[in-house]
C-alpha cells in the first residue's frame, strides 16, 4: 500500500491534467460553434460541452474509457467493431513473430558462442543493427510479400520476428558467456562435452539475460505488428484502427486503439515477468 500511494498520486495528477487539457484544447471548437449560431456560452456551459464532442481534439479520459469498454464488452468478439477482434489479430501476429524471432535468436546465439568465426563475423552486425531504424523496412516487407501472394498474418509476423531477433541474440550471447572461466574449467575436468556444458551450465546461467531480452523483444514485436498493419490500407488490427482513425478524424477511436495496444503490451510484459519470476525461483536464483 505504501508503494502504491505515490503511483496512484502521480496517476491522479495525470488524469487531472488530462481533463484540464481536454477543456483547454476543445474549448475553441465550442466557442466557434456558439459564435456561428449567434449565442454566447459561459464557462459553466463550455466545460461539459468540451467533454462530450463527437470528434474532440483531445477526448476526455471517460470518453476513451467508454469507447474501450464499448469495443471490448459491447460487441461480439467477431465483429469488425470489436477491439478484441482487432487486438487478437495484432496479438497473433505478435506472438507468432516473437516465437520465430526468439527461437532463431537463441539458435544464432548458441552458434556464436561455439564458433569463433561466426562470432567475429556476425556479432558486430548484430550490435550495429540495434542502432538502425529497422522498422523503416516494414512497409516494404508487407507490400513485397503481398505482391508475391503472401498476406495476412505472416508478413506482420516476419516484421515482429525481425524486431525481437536482435535483442535476443545480443542478450543471449552475453548470457551464454556469463559463466566464469572457473566453472567452465570445472566442467572440462569432469570431461563434459560442449553440448553438456551448454545444457548444464551455459543455458541455466543465461536465464536472467534471456528474460531481460524477452521483455524488450516482446514489446518490440508488438510495435512491429502494429506498424506492419498500416501499409496494407488498414484492413484489420490495432494498427489499422489507428490509421483509419487518423484518416477519418475519429480521435476517440485512435485513443481507444492506443489504450488497447498499451494494455496488450503491459499484459505481455507482465506475463514474461511472471514466467521469469517463476523460473528463477525454481532455479533458486531469486528468493
Amino acid at each position, binding site marked *: 500500500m505504501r*508503494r502504491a500511494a*505515490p*503511483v*496512484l*498520486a*502521480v*496517476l491522479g495528477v*495525470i488524469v487531472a491534467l488530462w481533463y484540464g487539457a481536454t477543456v483547454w484544447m476543445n474549448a475553441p471548437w465550442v466557442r466557434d460553434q456558439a459564435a456561428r449560431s449567434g449565442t454566447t456560452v459561459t464557462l459553466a456551459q463550455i466545460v461539459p460541452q468540451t467533454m462530450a464532442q463527437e470528434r474532440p*481534439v483531445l477526448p476526455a479520459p471517460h470518453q476513451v474509457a467508454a469507447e474501450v469498454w464499448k469495443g471490448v464488452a459491447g460487441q461480439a468478439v467477431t465483429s469488425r467493431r470489436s477491439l478484441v477482434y482487432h487486438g487478437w489479430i495484432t496479438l497473433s501476429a505478435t506472438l507468432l513473430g516473437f516465437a520465430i524471432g526468439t527461437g532463431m535468436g537463441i539458435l544464432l546465439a548458441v552458434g556464436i558462442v561455439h564458433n*569463433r*568465426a561466426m*562470432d*567475429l*563475423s*556476425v*556479432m*558486430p*552486425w548484430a550490435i*550495429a543493427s*540495434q*542502432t*538502425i*531504424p529497422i*522498422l*523503416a*523496412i516494414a*512497409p*516494404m516487407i508487407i*507490400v*513485397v510479400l503481398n*505482391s*508475391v501472394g503472401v498476406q495476412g498474418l505472416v508478413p506482420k509476423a516476419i516484421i515482429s520476428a525481425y524486431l525481437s531477433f536482435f535483442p535476443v541474440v545480443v542478450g543471449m550471447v552475453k548470457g551464454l558467456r556469463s559463466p566464469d572461466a572457473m566453472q567452465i574449467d570445472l566442467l572440462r575436468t569432469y570431461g563434459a562435452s560442449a553440448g553438456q556444458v551448454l545444457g548444464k551450465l551455459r543455458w541455466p546461467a543465461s536465464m536472467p539475460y534471456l528474460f531481460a531480452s524477452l*521483455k524488450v523483444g516482446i*514489446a518490440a514485436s*508488438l*510495435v512491429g505488428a*502494429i*506498424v506492419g498493419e*498500416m*501499409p496494407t490500407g488498414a484492413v484489420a488490427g*490495432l*494498427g489499422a484502427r*489507428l*490509421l483509419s*482513425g*487518423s484518416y477519418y*478524424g475519429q*480521435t476517440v477511436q*485512435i*485513443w481507444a*486503439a*492506443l489504450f488497447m*495496444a*498499451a494494455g496488450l*503490451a*503491459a499484459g505481455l*510484459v507482465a506475463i514474461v515477468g511472471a514466467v521469469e519470476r517463476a523460473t528463477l525461483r525454481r532455479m533458486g536464483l531469486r528468493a
Partner: protein
Amino acid sequence: MTWVVGTMVFWAAAWAVNIRLAASGLMAHRAGRLVVPALFGITLLVIWEGLVRGLGVPAVILPPPSAIAARIASSTDILWADFVQTFVKGALSGYAIGCGAALLTAVLIDRSAFLKAGLLPVGSFMAALPVVGIAPILVMWFGFDWQSKAAVVVVMVYFPVLVNAVAGLQAAEPMQRDLMATWGASHWQSLWKLRVPAALPFVFNGLKIATTLALIGAIVAEFFGSPTVGMGFRISTEVGRLALDMVWAEIAVAALAGSAFYGCIALIERRMTFWHPSQRG
C-alpha cells in the same frame, strides 16, 4: 546459372578465409578485428547481388545492391532533402527537446522520494508501451510538417531517458554522499560534483537507446501524413509505386544516419565517462 555457381564459390571461399582469419593472430589487433565482419558484410552483398541476378528476381521484389547504389548516386539531392527533413528537423530537434526535458525532470524530482516512487514505475511502464502509436494524434495536433514528428520523438525518448537518469542519480554510493556532507556541500554542490558525474553512465545508456527511438519515431510518424519530403514519406510512396531501389536507398541512408547518430553519442560518452570501468579496457 554462372551467377549462382560463382556466388556459391565466393561464399565458400570467403567463409574459409574468415575461419582462417578468426583462428590467426591477426585478431589480437583492433584493426584486424574489423576485417572479419567487413568480409562477412561484403559476402552478404555478393550473395544478394549474385542470387538476384542468377535467379532473375524481378526488381519490384528485390533490387540488387548495384541498382540500389546506382539509385543512391543518382538521387543524392532527394535523399539529402529527405534526410534534412526527417533527421535534422524531426528527429534531432525532438531528441534534444525530449532528452533535455527528461534530464530536467530527473533533477527536479530527485529531491522528492515521493515523486520518485510515483514517477519511476509510471515511467518504466510507459517506456515499454508502443508509444509510436501516438503518432496519428500528434500529427493531427501539430500538422503535417516536422513539428509533429519532433513531438512524436519527444514523447518516445522522454521516458527511457527519464528512467535511466533517475536510476543514475541514485548511483553514487552512500559513503561518497556522506563525504560530501562532511565537507558541508550543499544539495546542488553535491548534485553537480558527485551525483551527476556518477549518473553519466546511466544517462548515456538512456541517450543511446533514445537515438534509435528518435529515428524510428520520426520515420513512422511520416507514415501518418507529411509534406512531400521526408524519409518516411519517400518510403511509403515509393513502396506504393514499387520503386524498391529508392526504398532501399532511403533505408541505407536511415541505417547510416542511425549508426552515425549512435556513434556520436557513444563518442561523447567515451569523452565524458572515461573514468568508468566499462570505458577503460
